[in-house]
């Protein structure tokens, strides 16, 4: 058992993860993260537009991939972040895990929306249609619906700390289901149409991999920056709520 007894000094992780302490140390990271994000985006976009050739199969539309692939990657990574936070919330009942879960949900929804939107705009010139019930697109769409459901779920709770554990349960049920959904959709897809169109097996020379990887790094940095700022404001929001509540309680104490 790794559970720390209350008398023992908490380990370094739980000390860093205490909301108040988190506010202190994360304050030093926000500005460097913003700068790193901007620089990486600058380099990535320069590569994407000025220093990369057109793909011999996709042509110039390969440039859409530099946005589409990072966001498709984020759509899954953000859910992984939420699932890990959900475990933290359920097992250790850690308030920072609740905050992390809540801050990640709208970000994941937005990145998934970008992935879908750019996917559609890439599909029109490449496949001749905005939407194709392709395995990946369909499971991304389902993932988007799950994000929207989670955002809606967060908004229905008045007492956020109580809602967190319920939402953590649902987040984990979703995390277990995502691979199954992916499998079932892929299976369904091969059943209904012999895969004429596939993004697999496309060769990727270094001239395309470089901007792609830089853009993936840039979007990942963007997520972590926004996530950190959103977590900080959620902690502040809870603090303000508590102060208001205490203030009202004190007032009622005085008058009575």
């Amino acid at each position: 058992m790794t559970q720390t007894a209350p008398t023992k000094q908490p380990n370094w992780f739980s000390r860093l993860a205490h909301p108040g302490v988190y506010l202190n140390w994360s304050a030093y990271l926000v500005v460097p993260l913003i700068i790193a994000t901007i620089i990486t985006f600058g380099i990535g976009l320069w590569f994407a537009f000025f220093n990369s050739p057109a793909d011999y199969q996709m042509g110039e539309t390969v440039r859409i991939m530099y946005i589409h692939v990072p966001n498709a990657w984020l759509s899954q990574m953000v859910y992984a972040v939420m699932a890990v936070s959900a475990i933290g919330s359920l097992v250790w009942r850690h308030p920072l895990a609740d905050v992390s879960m809540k801050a990640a949900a709208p970000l994941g929804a937005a990145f998934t929306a970008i992935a879908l939107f750019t996917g559609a705009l890439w599909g029109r010139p490449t496949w001749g249609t905005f939407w194709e019930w392709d395995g990946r697109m369909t499971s991304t769409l389902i993932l988007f619906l799950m994000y929207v459901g989670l955002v809606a779920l967060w908004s229905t709770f008045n007492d956020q700390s109580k809602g967190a554990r319920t939402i953590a349960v649902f987040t984990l049920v979703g995390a277990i289901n995502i691979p199954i959904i992916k499998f079932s959709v892929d299976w369904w897809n091969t059943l209904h149409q012999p895969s004429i169109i596939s993004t697999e097996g496309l060769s990727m020379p270094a001239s395309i991999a470089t901007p792609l990887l830089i853009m993936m790094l840039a979007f990942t940095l963007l997520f972590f920056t926004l996530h950190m700022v959103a977590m900080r404001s959620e902690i502040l929001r809870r603090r303000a709520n508590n102060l208001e509540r205490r203030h009202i309680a004190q007032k009622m104490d005085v008058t009575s």
Partner: protein
Amino acid sequence: MNGFTTIIMQDIKLAIRTGGSTITLLTFYISIGVIMPIAIGPDKQLLAFLAPAIVWIAALLSTLLGLERLFVADHEDGTLLVLTHADISMPAIALAKLIAHWLITALPLILATPVLAVMLFMDWPTFVAIILALLLGSPALIALGGVGAAIAVTLKRGGVIAPILIMPLAVPILIFGISATSSLAGPGASNAALLFLSAFSLLSVAFAPFAIALALRTAAE
């Protein structure tokens, strides 16, 4: 009689005494079978072709509709709070409630399927296949819906949110259920879809009681 069967019998008795909800659900299920031909047109071949999809969508929507109040009533009258202090574990309670709910809602729906089969001009092999697929798939529907219902307990408002949350998770049931139906009835029958459907049902019935127990415990706190 132990606590597990007591809960099941209690729920069934309650459902028989109050009656209404099962009949409402059946009416809803059959209504979809009436509305679809009106929307699509009385083309025999087309309806027969679409029949498995229509029946599955009807089953999915009816189950989600019926699950709305699975735990809410127990939460409101305090039964849930009493049950948390009973000497039977919370996941076992959840499983008992799911089994009871399957008997009250899913089984009547499956029994009413012949009506839909007639209205949608289903042929005999398809009918047998869909009954089999519904029997194997409905436990997963109830189990997943139970998770949604347990989450809905903690919500003060927002009745529609549970179906919205559960719908994406039910996609594998729909996919495997419909392809099991068509592959069993069609030429070159394969059991793959039916096996996946059963596996998914087993998995959900095994995991859902724990998720439901977790959610209900937070609600009772």
